[in-house]
């Protein structure tokens, strides 16, 4: 069994998910990143897409739109403007993330008018 580490997915309105995981994949502005235990300290900007959290027994898919990823002392924090847990696979999550982005763009257009 792979070593596990602490993962928190936090959005401004609530803590979306928090727990132990063995593997996390996420999409940053530079490309996809895979994180396992004892990753070097990293700070990355998140893009719109899906993040997957693999615990030993389960896989959680989160739709993420923007935000940051911090890896520090075996603690992974996903700080996202908008994050939602999605039932289903990565494609569903990606679609959900794009829907979040579209909703936000629509809201911003409303304001500028």
């Amino acid at each position, binding site marked *: 069994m792979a070593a596990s580490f602490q993962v*928190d997915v*936090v959005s*401004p309105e609530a803590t979306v998910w928090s727990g132990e995981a063995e593997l996390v994949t996420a999409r940053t502005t530079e490309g996809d990143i895979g994180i396992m235990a004892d990753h070097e300290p990293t700070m990355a900007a998140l893009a719109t897409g899906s993040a997957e959290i693999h615990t030993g027994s389960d896989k959680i898919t989160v739709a993420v739109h923007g935000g940051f990823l911090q890896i*520090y002392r075996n603690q992974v924090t996903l700080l996202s403007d908008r994050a939602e847990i999605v039932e289903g696979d990565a494609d569903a999550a990606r679609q959900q993330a794009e829907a979040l982005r579209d909703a936000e763009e629509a809201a911003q257009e409303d304001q500028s008018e």
Partner: protein
Amino acid sequence: MASAELRLIRRRIRSVESTMKITSAMELIAASRIVRAQARVEAAQPYTDKLVEVISNVGAASGGASHPLLDIRERRVAGVLVVTSDRGLAGGYNSNVIRLAERRLIELRNQRTDTRLYCVGRKSNSYFRYRGYQIERSFLGVTDTPGYGDARAIANTILNEYAEEAVDSVDAFTTRYVSALTQTATEWPLLPIQPPAREQSADEIATGYTYEPNPESILNRLLPRYLEASVFGMLLEASASEHAARRRAMKAATEAAEELTKILSREANQARQAEITTEISEIVGGAEALTAG
């Protein structure tokens, strides 16, 4: 008939009682909303905490990063953001904040500093408009249950003004939710951003970060988020304070109404008794007259 006075008093009792029904209902509603508003304040806390942690890490790692949003520049135009509610009946909640803000506006005018005023909530909007202040931008309908989108709209507005150098600083006047019993109107500096104090010691952060893409662009993205999160936290606290203030005001009103009905029903009893006494003495007087005749 002498019952005119009695009728008037009974009518007042009815009117006070129906007002009391309204105030006690409002008290109950406000009480239930405080709980929800408080839960939202707590739910937003982890995000802000993490963001502060990230910012202090990036700041330390990039060696005292400089950024336009962090620079203190000479203040020629001061931005003032006033956070009040849309509805009244909340005791001194709105007037406390407005008083604080107006005092500052006058102070700034005496120092010959120009000001730009932004209002959140209908109450501050109408107060300042009535007194001839120019309001650059007002945000209505957000204070009851503020969403992150509302915070973002406000943060974006002041960020744009700051970037265009229309203002050189922005301070918010708002109510902080200290506890269920105390809420205080305070001044909350927003821009330039004062970087959060570092909690870790320097050697702890010395472990170099790998940045994707690079520290500058991360900081560029982080600072506006931080402002948004601050504004969001501020709105949530203001909303919790509003409900707490309203609950207190309505509780006082209900108690006052109870007291008033007590006094009024005593008066009504007295009036009724006086009426009966008159009636009896009239009857007795009439009977006396008959026997005498």
